[in-house]
């Protein structure tokens, strides 16, 4: 049995006194594509952000390839790792955001190149080659020297995905990457993600696109009020939800 790619053990997170994640346990193997569904405020985004250490968490552990993320525990005392170490660990995961968050002062290619140069220590020329390769993969070869302001939302999101994937992360995190897009641009982004899934990229996707979750994922996780309520094979879960909560959620969502 190989080591899991990602493990979350009793993950707890609170904002002030409000507990948002109340002990999340989850194990993910390499190559899995897991969709996370659940109603608004159930903690999906927060969970992804903890994995990437964009949020502090107060309890439990997150392991990537067996390596504890964010905190060391020595003799029962929990200490935050150094900034440098955390920066290195963040590069193990790639993240795509709802709002794209491209760097507006850099061209598409430069957006992709920045991490390659600064973190992977590639030369400009090497980085440019890799950037062009990934921009090609998301169908944007012709737009490499365009700036974010010159690109449509769908194109921007594809650049953002290329920027994350080019870093060669162990795991990709997608947080509702199509929610900010006009309906006619959703398809092109989902197509890119499908392509990555088919190639065996390990992915955690928060999505409200039930049809997409159904088609692309090897597993679905249903979250509610800060815990995982149910998980399993998408066909099983969507057709025969095991809990009342999930049945309700599916009824209220657009999936039929």
């Amino acid at each position: 049995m190989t080591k899991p790619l990602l493990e979350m053990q009793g993950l707890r997170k609170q904002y002030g006194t409000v507990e948002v994640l109340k002990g999340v346990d989850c194990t993910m193997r390499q190559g899995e594509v897991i969709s996370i569904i659940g109603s608004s405020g159930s903690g999906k985004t927060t969970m992804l952000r903890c994995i990437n250490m964009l949020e502090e968490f107060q309890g439990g552990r997150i392991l990537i390839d067996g390596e504890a993320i964010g905190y060391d525990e020595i003799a029962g005392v929990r200490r935050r790792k150094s900034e440098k170490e955390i920066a290195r660990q963040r590069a193990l995961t790639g993240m795509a955001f709802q709002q794209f968050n491209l760097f507006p002062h850099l061209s598409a290619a430069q957006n992709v190149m920045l991490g390659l140069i600064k973190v992977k220590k590639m030369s400009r020329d090497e980085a440019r080659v890799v950037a062009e390769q990934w921009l090609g993969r998301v169908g944007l070869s012709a737009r490499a020297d365009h700036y974010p302001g010159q690109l449509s939302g769908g194109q921007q999101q594809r650049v953002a995905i290329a920027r994350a994937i080019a870093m060669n992360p162990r795991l990709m995190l997608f947080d509702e990457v199509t929610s900010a897009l006009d309906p006619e641009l959703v398809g092109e982004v989902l197509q890119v993600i499908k392509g990555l899934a088919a190639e065996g990229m390990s992915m955690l996707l928060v999505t409200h696109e039930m049809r997409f979750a159904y088609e692309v994922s090897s597993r679905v996780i249903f979250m509610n009020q800060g815990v995982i309520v149910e998980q399993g094979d998408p066909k099983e879960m969507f057709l025969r939800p095991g809990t009342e909560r999930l049945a309700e959620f599916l009824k209220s969502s657009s999936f039929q």
Partner: protein
Amino acid sequence: MNDLMLFLNEVWIARLALLRGLGVTVSISLLAILAGSLLGVGVGLGLVYGNRLLRLVFRGYTDIIRGTPVLVLVLASYYIFSTVGLDLGPFQAGVLALAVFCSSHVGEILRGALQAIPIGQTEAAKAIGLTFGQTFGSVLWPQALRQILPTWVNTAAEMVKASTLLSVIGVAELLLRTQEIISRNFLSLQFYFLAGFLYFLINYGIERLGKYVERKTAVPS
């Protein structure tokens, strides 16, 4: 016609004094803008990234300086340092006062620009593994610079105008030279007009330069 010839003749006589005054004005302004901007960047960074104490100190600094008339700063700088025995000449004391004034403005402008950058920019940079220093250098600073350029040009022009206040402590900059010339030839209207025109030229140059840099660094969209 005769009046014009007379005026031009007087300008010719006073040319060296005028040029020296102009040179001093430009030197004061340049030094104050450069030193003030450097200091101001420090102030701005302190305001945004400092710990609570540092932020409080810098906030106090900018608020006090910005709430004080520049002339008061100039006089204070000139007299305070001489009473503690530190003998700054009028030129140094004046430049120091202007630089301090400039730094409070630049600091405040930079703070505003940095805080206006959406948090998503920092998060995206973190997510690809950039350290804070790298994030600042490659993502935040370049965006903030573009943002502050127009306001910074304004501040620079203000410094040129404020340099006239150094005439009060006897720095022979353009205004003081002009006054000296007028006391000899009594052509006050003409020579004040000439001085005004020269100040305008300097600031016009600054503005054009700013516009040029703005165009050069504009992000296509």
